[in-house]
């Protein structure tokens, strides 16, 4: 997977889908955690729909969402 930062993608890196070898595109992506639905902009393969979740998002905001919803 090749990763280069592309200013025109709003700071998101250029990522190619390893299955389709197409450049992933920013798209509003929906997901669920503990019965709560969320959406945020992620890179997605225009052909197969696979999404790329950068590590800083997984360890940052997504982890914070999990923390907020998990029981203490």
């Amino acid at each position, binding site marked *: 997977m090749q990763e280069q930062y592309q200013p025109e993608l709003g700071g998101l890196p250029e990522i190619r889908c390893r299955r389709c070898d197409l450049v992933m595109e920013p798209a509003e992506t929906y997901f669920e955690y503990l*019965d709560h639905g*969320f959406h*945020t902009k992620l890179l997605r393969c225009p052909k197969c729909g696979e999404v790329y979740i950068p590590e800083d998002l997984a360890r940052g*905001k*997504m982890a914070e969402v999990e923390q*907020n*919803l998990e029981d*203490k």
Partner: protein
Amino acid sequence: MMRKDMTYSVCPICLKRIPAERIHEGQKVQMVKICQEHGMFTAPLWRGNVSWGIWKGRIEPLREDECLQCGACTGLCPDHRRATCCTLLEVTGRCNRNCTFCFAGECEEADPPLEQVKAWIRDLTVPGETFLQLSGGEPTLREDLPEIVAFARECGCRYVQLNSNGVRLAEDVDYVRRLAEAGLSFVFLQFDGVSDDVYVRLRRGPMMQIKERAIENCGRYGLGVTLVPVVVPGVNTDQIGDILRYGISRSPVVRGVHFQPVSYFGRMPRMPRDEDRFTLDELIKEIAVQSGGLIAEENLAPSCCDHPMCGFHADFVVMPDGSLRPLTKRSTACCCHGSSLPEEDPARKNREFIGRRWSSGGGKKAEGVTAAENEPVMKTGEDGMPDLSDMDTFLSYGRTYGFTVTSMAFQDAGNLDFERMRQCSLHVYRDGKKIPFCANYLTPFPAENVNGGFRIMSMK
């Protein structure tokens, strides 16, 4: 159908450890225990508004040799089941009120010197982890409290909480500023009701304006405030909904409400009778009823960190129209409930949860910060409400307008259960030792009215 199970408690007169039975009749549960010297005692534990069995889950029964050291106030037992979530440190015994109820009771001793308090803090702090509650007496009677707060932060305390009646916080805004600048994290504010008659009965004087001003002053310097009502039958049980609505209306300065059903230790007006007790399941029911749909019973989940019969918690976001959006449900509970070997230390998890939620959302500890500057970044939906499905809005708005409803039901000499105490994570620091809160403040009931060695405390 009646059934019973066994645990250990104390004689409320001599505090000797004795076996106790929990008698289950339908969904009602009461404790029955016999002291060879002082007779039989009973106390209601559960009044059947919620299923005892479902709420409690599976908890391993207490062994005869368990929790001996905790009960003797000689430190935590080697096999104590919880690490410390919150460490309580009394920095003074003095107080500026003379409340009808007070767990700390009477104390006219001089304050411990600052250097002594610093040595205690140095000893108790685990840098980056410790959640320190400064308590008393009334801690704000100390002029050097800001220095104590600053020292605790220097030592690495992760959160420093002030337990206060709010008098000084209302009257001395510069003192509030100094506390905030010293690094105080948040305030636990005694708040028993929304009308003066409650304060006249519990605190021997009107205090509503004091509470309002204290909250306002804390808000001015970005200090989150948690309202802490002691709930006493016949005094303020009918104000549970009003207290919640008041707290919500003061969001985001007010971060939540922490209910404490009355317990009888320290200073108490009389030996408790059956009707003087307000059980946890009664509180759960009254929150659902009196909140008028704001909070459902299923939003309240049993304590995971402490024993489930010791309290509950619920987590919400306050919406602009004053409604609450629940974040947790009882059905999604709990990582560790009933488990003896949880994967993550529940005390640490609990500490992070309450620390995060009770801190002021985005509040800056400097004068002149306008409310607008602290407003969260948010997208709105078609209904004009924050779009909480947008991840950035959820995080930003939730951080600012988070609201918790929690409870801690302390134990006294009448209803103490060592099965609960062995899981206590609220520890009082005293003379280099950590002692479970309810062991530290355990107070014998007065022996008058003990008739021929047989005293039925609260049986109906």
